[in-house]
């Protein structure tokens, strides 16, 4: 395997200077990964935080320290597939998550078809995952929200670094613009597998690379005012000579003004832009096909925060213009495009307060108002998906406004100093929808927005949990149950795929979904050996009239059992060891139950959607980190083995005919066997 030979990565880590406001907020509302007491007392149930500086503690694929993969090791969080960067939470799909980088949303978080996360760990401070139970200041996703905070530069002195590995190279520079007032940080990463391709006469015409750039500047105007400018872009390209060219890129930027009103209140004003674009082309034996799509969003968000005695108040509003191109394609003289715009507004109010010494409450309301705008065609559909009537609204004319009231409630009752009960209820809505034939994200996903036909996805989730710890906080335990119901969930009509029609609403049907399960977790927090065991038992189902005879069916991301075991052992001051074992029981998928002949071909007959189970997937990953501190720098060697016992896990299952119908074979495709890696880090 080509990539398995490209695993030596040298990394340079930079000192962390967190974005003070956001980090301040996070410290208050988010469970620290190593604090049992905070997990116990935290009102918000289902919130998890990963500190970037802790990433080296768990084994990683290809030696990359990756925030998305760290998230996947948390209890109740599932990876999409063996090597995908995307994650799923409590029955939702990755397309129902929202990922924010310094407020701006990012839509496709994978490089190289998802093998690498789009986020360069050198540019980030921390990330907080809300597993569906969101405070009112978050919205736009019917499943989870991941809030990622970028790192700011050092205001007193310059630092820089570079790393060169066989897989990718990174460079970082940071320092003051005006000493002790303003600072910048720029970090860039690029893979260079394409350089190896050029060494081979057979592969030199091909292209395979990704890059990403993160930049952040901040300016402390005075003790009450601070500005932050954040920029992120990531780009992927895979080209097979002049025949196939697949590209996608993310771009997001935000400008934030933080103003403190004394010590107990602040306001934060953020203007942001986010763009995700795919471009794919085929030029082959005279056949020329090109297709693309995008999601663009320009918005403004205003946050207010006040500590009023025992009350903590968060309020805000957000307005954004969205532009979504579900598809545009050209083939010879055919040129079709579907692109629409919308105006998205929300405002919120959230109050946290202790009711009694033992009872804490966080309650809020978010109001979402989403208005598709005229300027492009809208239509009504017949039951069979044919267009019955066209509507041509004027440019910027509001076609319809979908208003959703989203109450949020979290309650924490302290049973004793070492035990608490938590309860939460959340309604969330989502207006940007992805349509996928498969359970994983690809550049061929199509996106659309709520319209006169498509309604917002609205999810209601209730969750209750018991949290306990030992008096010395060495161990803590949790058990959470949840039930999630979602309206207006979308799936492909039978017989339709992404290119069947340019009008995406003709491809899909809407229905309802539900997910429920229990998440159990046990952690050891102190001592040489730390880690956790997580177990999730879950169900995720969908019911849509017109699909599966209108009966409930397992969602294509449904898995019954997920086990994560993570262990970290501090051997001595030089060596740290870690291991993780991940087990996922078989994922739901669709297989035929019969076959018949048409035109001399065996055609499969499907009786149920997602009615079969793929084989279980599991792998053991280990790593050993050797560190040595010098006067002004630290060297680190990281040795890792992904999939130690070389298990071939299912990535895809395809059905293939034997010769002239002589037997149907189910073939499982796997991505990785055993993958050793080594990387070298310098911190200075």
């Amino acid at each position, binding site marked *: 395997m080509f990539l398995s030979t490209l695993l030596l990565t040298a990394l340079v880590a930079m000192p962390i200077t967190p974005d003070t406001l956001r980090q301040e907020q996070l410290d208050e509302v988010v469970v620290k990964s190593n604090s049992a007491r905070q997990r116990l007392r935290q009102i918000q149930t289902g919130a998890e935080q990963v500190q970037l500086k802790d990433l080296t503690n768990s084994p990683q694929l290809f030696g990359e320290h990756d925030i998305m993969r760290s998230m996947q090791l948390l209890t109740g969080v599932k990876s999409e597939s063996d090597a995908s960067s995307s994650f799923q939470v409590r029955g939702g799909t990755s397309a129902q998550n929202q990922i924010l980088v310094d407020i701006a949303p990012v839509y496709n978080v994978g490089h190289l078809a998802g093998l690498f996360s789009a986020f360069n760990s050198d540019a980030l401070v921390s990330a907080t995952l809300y597993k569906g139970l969101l405070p009112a200041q978050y919205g736009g996703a019917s499943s989870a929200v991941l809030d990622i905070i970028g790192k700011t530069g050092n205001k007193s002195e310059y630092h820089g670094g570079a790393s060169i590995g066989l897989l990718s190279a990174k460079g970082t520079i940071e320092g003051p613009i005006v000493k002790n007032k303003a600072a910048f940080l720029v970090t860039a990463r690029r893979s260079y597998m394409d350089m190896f391709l050029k060494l081979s006469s057979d592969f030199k015409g091909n292209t395979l690379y990704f890059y990403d750039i993160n930049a952040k500047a901040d300016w402390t105007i005075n003790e009450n005012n601070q500005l932050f400018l954040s920029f992120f872009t990531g780009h992927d390209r895979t080209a097979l000579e002049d025949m196939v060219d697949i590209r996608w890129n993310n771009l997001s930027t935000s400008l934030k003004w933080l103003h403190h009103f004394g010590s107990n209140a602040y306001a934060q004003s953020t203007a942001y832009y986010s763009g995700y674009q795919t471009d794919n082309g085929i030029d082959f034996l005279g056949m020329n096909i090109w297709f693309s799509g995008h999601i663009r969003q320009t918005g403004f968000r205003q946050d207010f925060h006040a500590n009023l005695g025992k009350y903590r108040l968060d309020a805000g509003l957000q307005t954004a213009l969205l532009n979504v191109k579900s598809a545009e394609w050209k083939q*010879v003289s055919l040129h079709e495009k579907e692109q629409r715009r919308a105006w998205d507004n929300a405002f919120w109010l959230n109050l946290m307060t202790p009711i009694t010494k033992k009872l804490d409450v966080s309650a809020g309301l978010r109001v979402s108002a989403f208005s598709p705008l005229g300027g492009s065609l809208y239509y009504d559909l017949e039951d069979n998906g044919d267009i019955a009537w066209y509507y041509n609204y004027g440019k910027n004319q509001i076609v319809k406004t979908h208003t959703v009231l989203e109450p949020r409630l979290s309650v924490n009752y302290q049973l004793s100093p070492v035990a608490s009960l938590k309860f939460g209820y959340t309604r969330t809505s989502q207006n940007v929808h992805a349509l996928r034939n498969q359970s994983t994200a690809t550049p061929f996903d199509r996106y659309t927005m709520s319209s006169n036909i498509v309604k917002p996805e609205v999810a209601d989730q209730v969750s209750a949990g018991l949290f306990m710890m030992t008096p010395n906080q060495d161990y803590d335990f949790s058990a959470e149950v949840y039930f999630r119901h979602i309206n207006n969930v979308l799936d492909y009509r039978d017989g339709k795929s992404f290119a069947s029609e340019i009008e995406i609403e003709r491809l899909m049907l809407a229905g309802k979904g539900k997910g429920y399960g229990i998440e159990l977790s046990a952690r050891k927090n102190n001592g040489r050996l730390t880690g956790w065991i997580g177990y999730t038992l879950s169900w995720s189902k969908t019911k849509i009239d017109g699909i599966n005879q209108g009966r409930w069916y397992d969602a294509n991301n449904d898995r019954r059992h997920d086990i994560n075991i993570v262990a970290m052992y501090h051997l001595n001051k030089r060596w740290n060891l870690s291991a993780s074992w991940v087990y996922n029981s078989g994922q739901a998928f669709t297989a035929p139950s019969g*076959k018949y002949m048409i035109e001399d071909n065996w055609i499969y007959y499907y009786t149920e959607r997602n009615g079969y189970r793929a084989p279980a997937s599991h792998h053991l990953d280990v790593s050993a980190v050797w560190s040595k501190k010098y006067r002004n720098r630290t060297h680190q060697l990281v040795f890792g083995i992904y999939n130690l016992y070389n298990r071939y896990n299912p990535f895809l299952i395809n059905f293939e005919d034997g010769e002239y119908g002589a037997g149907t074979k189910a073939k499982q495709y*796997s991505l990785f066997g055993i993958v050793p890696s080594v990387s070298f880090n310098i911190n200075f």
Partner: protein
Amino acid sequence: MRRLLYIIGILGLMSCTKEISIDYHSHDTRYVVEGTINNDGTEIRVSTTNAMEDNTTGSDVNNATVTLTADDGTTATIPFVRNGYYRSKFAGIAGTVYKLDVEVDGQHFTSTSTMQRTPKMNEFKLVWKKMLTERYLFGDLRLQDIPNESNWYFMHIYRNGLGYRWAVMKDDKNPNKELQQLFTFFRDGQHDNDVLQDGDELHIVIRAIDQRAYDYLYSMQQMSSTATNPIDNFTGGCLGYFSANSEIEYYQDFYYRDVTEDDE
């Protein structure tokens, strides 16, 4: 599915493929009707679905009553011949709408189709195309679109009388002008019965079909991606489709010396 496999494949990342066993579910047998009427006559095949492990082709239905009705009021009963086939010299006329009725064991299935005009083929050639380190054989079929109307085409390549490759396309890519359809045959060096041999007879049939038949066949073509049944073409609950079509045929004997090398 194929697209995803293709991306992963060209990234060189697929480390292992293996055959796995599936405990296929049983299903209630369904009827399958495959009907065509063309310039020469009518042929209807009635069969049933098989279990996944059953590779026999003998699930023929020999007791159906098959009736064809034209929109000019002409009606014909299509007689049973053998092995699930019902044939007649009842020929189609372009522009006529035909209704096919099949009655079997108390069930009644109906579909309609409009006879299209005769298509025109421009060229068929065989081309080796190098992709990374491998050469692949492609069939490159060019049609001349029937002018000044919407058209849908079904192309079927038979090898020594047995179905080998098929595809459908509509003329919206280049209306009134030349249309192209590529067929992937096999990889150079591949060793199985899918590989063409010198002297093999290639029989190319091109049909101009109506939109209903196209929609059915296109959804059938997408099944590896959609993992769903094709859209319904019949009322009454049977699988399959009915097409009234004009067609042309082209015969070519395959010889490796005739294959050209793409030098793009």
